[in-house]
């Protein structure tokens, strides 16, 4: 007898590059979405056994619990330096980090910019949720003007804090990087209130893949994922997606800032 199973052809299925552990991420968080995009790209590239993840400090601190690859857990902000140290002696490995906006654009800005400027062949995924997620919602370098956070209880005042920092533009201002891209990752509202489009995830999947390919060609690759943090923004999941589309998308416009090897053209 033929079981129903055999009648169907799996188009998308479980990924061995995921450990299968339930994540600690809040419902609807792009940290989770990105995790699957990365697992999927590593499988497409057949790279699981030559990959090293450098997890950062932030909500991605436990990324190695979910991604079934070798991993080093870096001090807050220092992932790019740790990656460079790995890659310099083991150029055969595929090395990448998942970092928050606080991790990469505040405490670790020096490590990010210097690794970028030297064009270290590494891949950095930045989850920009405009807030310090893990520590309970303090202001991040990327927090938009007026946003209420626990350390800007009356809204972010640019006279005091300076304007939000644009990590992709900073990285792209350097000669070193080979690939710089910003993707709007959350589901996006459509004119019909009950429908959102999933273009961000699909676009993200391609960007992740490209960022690994660029590293394999010897280049520094950086992808910023504009994301949400519904819990610390104190919005429902879908409201947070609407807020991101309205406020973060114009502040951090999606786009390709550098593609030295033309990976997007193919």
């Amino acid at each position, binding site marked *: 007898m*033929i079981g*129903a199973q055999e*009648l*169907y*052809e*799996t*188009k*998308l*299925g*479980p*990924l061995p590059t*995921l450990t*299968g552990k*339930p*994540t600690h*991420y*809040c*419902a*609807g*968080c*792009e*940290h*989770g*979405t990105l*995790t*699957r*995009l990365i697992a999927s790209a590593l499988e497409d590239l057949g790279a699981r056994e030559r990959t090293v993840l450098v997890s950062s400090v932030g909500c991605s601190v436990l990324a190695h619990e979910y991604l079934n690859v070798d991993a080093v857990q870096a001090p807050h902000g220092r992932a790019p330096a740790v990656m460079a140290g790995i890659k310099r002696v083991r150029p055969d490995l595929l090395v990448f980090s998942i970092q928050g906006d606080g991790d990469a654009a505040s405490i670790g800005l020096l490590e990010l910019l210097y690794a970028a400027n030297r064009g270290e062949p590494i891949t950095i995924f930045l989850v920009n949720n405009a807030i310090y997620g893990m520590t309970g919602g303090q202001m991040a370098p990327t927090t938009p003007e007026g946003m209420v956070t626990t350390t800007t209880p009356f809204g972010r005042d640019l006279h005091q804090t300076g304007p939000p920092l644009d990590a992709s533009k900073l990285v792209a201002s350097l000669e070193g990087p080979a690939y710089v891209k910003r993707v709007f990752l959350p*589901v996006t509202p459509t004119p019909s209130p*009950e*429908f*959102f*489009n*999933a273009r961000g*995830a*699909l676009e993200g*999947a391609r960007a992740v893949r490209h960022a690994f390919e660029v590293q394999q060609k010897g280049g520094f690759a950086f992808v910023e994922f504009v994301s949400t943090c519904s819990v610390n923004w104190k919005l429902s*999941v*879908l409201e947070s997606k609407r807020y991101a589309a309205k406020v973060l998308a114009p502040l951090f416009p999606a786009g390709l800032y550098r593609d030295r090897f033309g990976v997007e053209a193919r």
Partner: protein
Amino acid sequence: MPESLVVGLPKSRVVVDAERCKGCDLCVVVCPQRNLHLSERFNRMGYHPVEFRYHGGRGDCTACGLCYWVCPDFAITEVSRLRP
């Protein structure tokens, strides 16, 4: 495979691991055919998990995979299509 065997079977399937689902609604709002909805029951984590219906509010599941890609919890474990 004899044609008759597949008659009446849904053309595509989406497998949801209800125990992983955090009921975030993302798959629900991106599904073009409205094949997914949050159930009334609770899973062990205390969320209303998503359920799949082949015949959705706007049509049948096309195995487009959008739900799979947006799900942050890998709770959409499989999207498959009936073999031709």
